[in-house]
């Protein structure tokens, strides 16, 4: 459903600081895939997500979503079919707006500029019902400003609003990395529940090898701009962390090095 063809991307092109992240990346994401992405420092995991989301444009190559060329589509237009959750819990919600106002912005996904009321009794009921799904009692605090919520609550909300209008693709960029262990469990459970129920094709970057193995049906490992491991289904199910590290060493001819890696 998502195809990256011969994608290249470099930063600071033509300067001494030129940094070629991808020179010829090819990658296909199948319908219903839940892919965890791991990789060594500077492998290009976040850049990959940002290229797909349209935060940066590619230097060369093509991006196809459901067969449509989205290479030139700006970020806000891709948002119609791509949902995103970021590492920083502060990044996915508007702090000075209330819980229901944040949800209303997400709910308006393809109609952001009309003069219809942002919130009406029907949408409010719907927001309440959706929030109750989180089990955090946020449905009783619709008019609370989001800045008063904890990081975990904000991240749960971000996940909810990112998936509210059934996106074709969900991009999770280390979305539990800034949370405490108990909250990580909560957000991971929620992530799996939403993805399984809505059958959203997902790319999840993580530094936690255990999560990468446990979650999803496919795992890719990146190194210096290329995908060095692509492990699926049955093979992934029986994978251990030791095996994974060995496989990386064989594929990349060096030890796996990620400063922030969490083994379990």
């Amino acid at each position, binding site marked *: 459903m998502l195809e990256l063809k011969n994608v290249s991307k470099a930063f600071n092109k033509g300067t001494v600081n030129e940094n070629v992240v991808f020179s010829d990346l090819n990658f296909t994401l199948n319908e219903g895939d839940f892919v965890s992405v791991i990789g060594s420092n500077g492998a290009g995991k976040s850049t990959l997500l940002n290229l797909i989301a349209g935060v940066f444009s590619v230097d060369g190559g093509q991006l196809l979503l459901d067969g449509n060329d989205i290479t030139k589509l700006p970020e806000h237009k891709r948002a119609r079919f791509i949902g995103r959750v970021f590492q920083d819990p502060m990044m996915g919600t508007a702090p000075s707006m209330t819980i229901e106002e944040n949800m209303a912005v997400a709910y308006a996904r*393809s109609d952001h500029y009309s003069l219809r009321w942002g919130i009406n009794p029907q949408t409010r009921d719907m927001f309440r019902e959706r929030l109750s799904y989180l089990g955090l009692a946020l449905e009783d605090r619709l008019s609370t400003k989001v800045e008063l919520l904890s990081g975990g609550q904000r991240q749960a909300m971000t996940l909810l609003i990112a998936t509210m209008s059934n996106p074709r693709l969900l991009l999770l960029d280390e979305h539990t990395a800034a949370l405490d262990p108990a909250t990580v469990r909560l957000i991971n459970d929620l992530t799996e529940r939403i993805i399984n129920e809505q059958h959203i094709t997902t790319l999840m970057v993580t530094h936690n090898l255990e999560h990468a193995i446990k979650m999803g049906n496919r795992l890719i490992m990146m190194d210096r701009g290329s995908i060095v491991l692509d492990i699926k289904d049955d093979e992934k199910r029986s994978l251990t962390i030791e095996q994974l590290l060995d496989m990386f060493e064989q594929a990349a001819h060096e030890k796996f090095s990620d400063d922030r890696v969490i083994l379990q």
Partner: protein
Amino acid sequence: MTAIFSVLIGLLSISLEQGLSYGIMALGVYITFKVLDFPDLTVEGSFPLGASVTAVLVAGGFNPFLALFVSMLAGMAAGGITGILNTKGHITGLLAGILTMTALYSINLRIMGRSNISLLNIDTVLTSVENLGVPHGVVAITTFAIAVVIIKLLLDALLKTRLGFSLRATGNNANMARALGVNTDAMKVFGLALSNGLVALSGGLVAQYQGFADVGMGIGTIVAGLASVIIGEMIMGERNIGYATMSALVGSFIYRLSIAIALRLGFAATDLKLLTTILVIIALTTPQIRKIIKVSSTS
């Protein structure tokens, strides 16, 4: 006793007239400064732009209400240009505003053909209202109050629509807004146009009220607007949208009242910019100073 009373009434009524007419400008500054989080200096040029356009049209026999409408459109164009310089030209917000403001100085002189235009003995919005039978003494307050109430309610309503939510999300967290499909560049241009439209409308209204337009009348607009927004916020807080726009208007009144009192106390009119600046600095630094006092008192 009656002398003091009449001085007080005089102070209050002039502060109310000015607070209301400049209050529309304060609402404009509220949109950029608070909603969009964009420090927009265009207002220093769009305020006299509104005054110039109105003065030329009204002096030429044009309907004074329509003249205000044309002024507003001119202000919207000016704000839109700052927005395009910022979003498409990638010029920082502050500099984009300064560029438009500077260009507007020449444009305003071109529009008027000279540095000021008198509107004495010419039919204005105020004389039209007076002709409806409103007593002379309260004509300005009545006219401005009606205008301010209508604009405030329309602005409150706008900020509660989907468009308004997109505008607020853009100012509050542009990253989130884009990730949810909002064209944040377009929202910035729209917000700046809306804001400067109101500022120019206020300029046109003030020109009709004081009976002249002057190319230099925009100096200090941004500081006066900020003072209104900040004073209002300090006094009333910003519980919700209606409250926040109300607080900008209350701030505008209190700001004009303090100016009137300062003049009454014998300060020269030329000292007012300095006084205003000090007032804004005090308002902006109060939270920090409070923090320092708290820290030192607990340690």
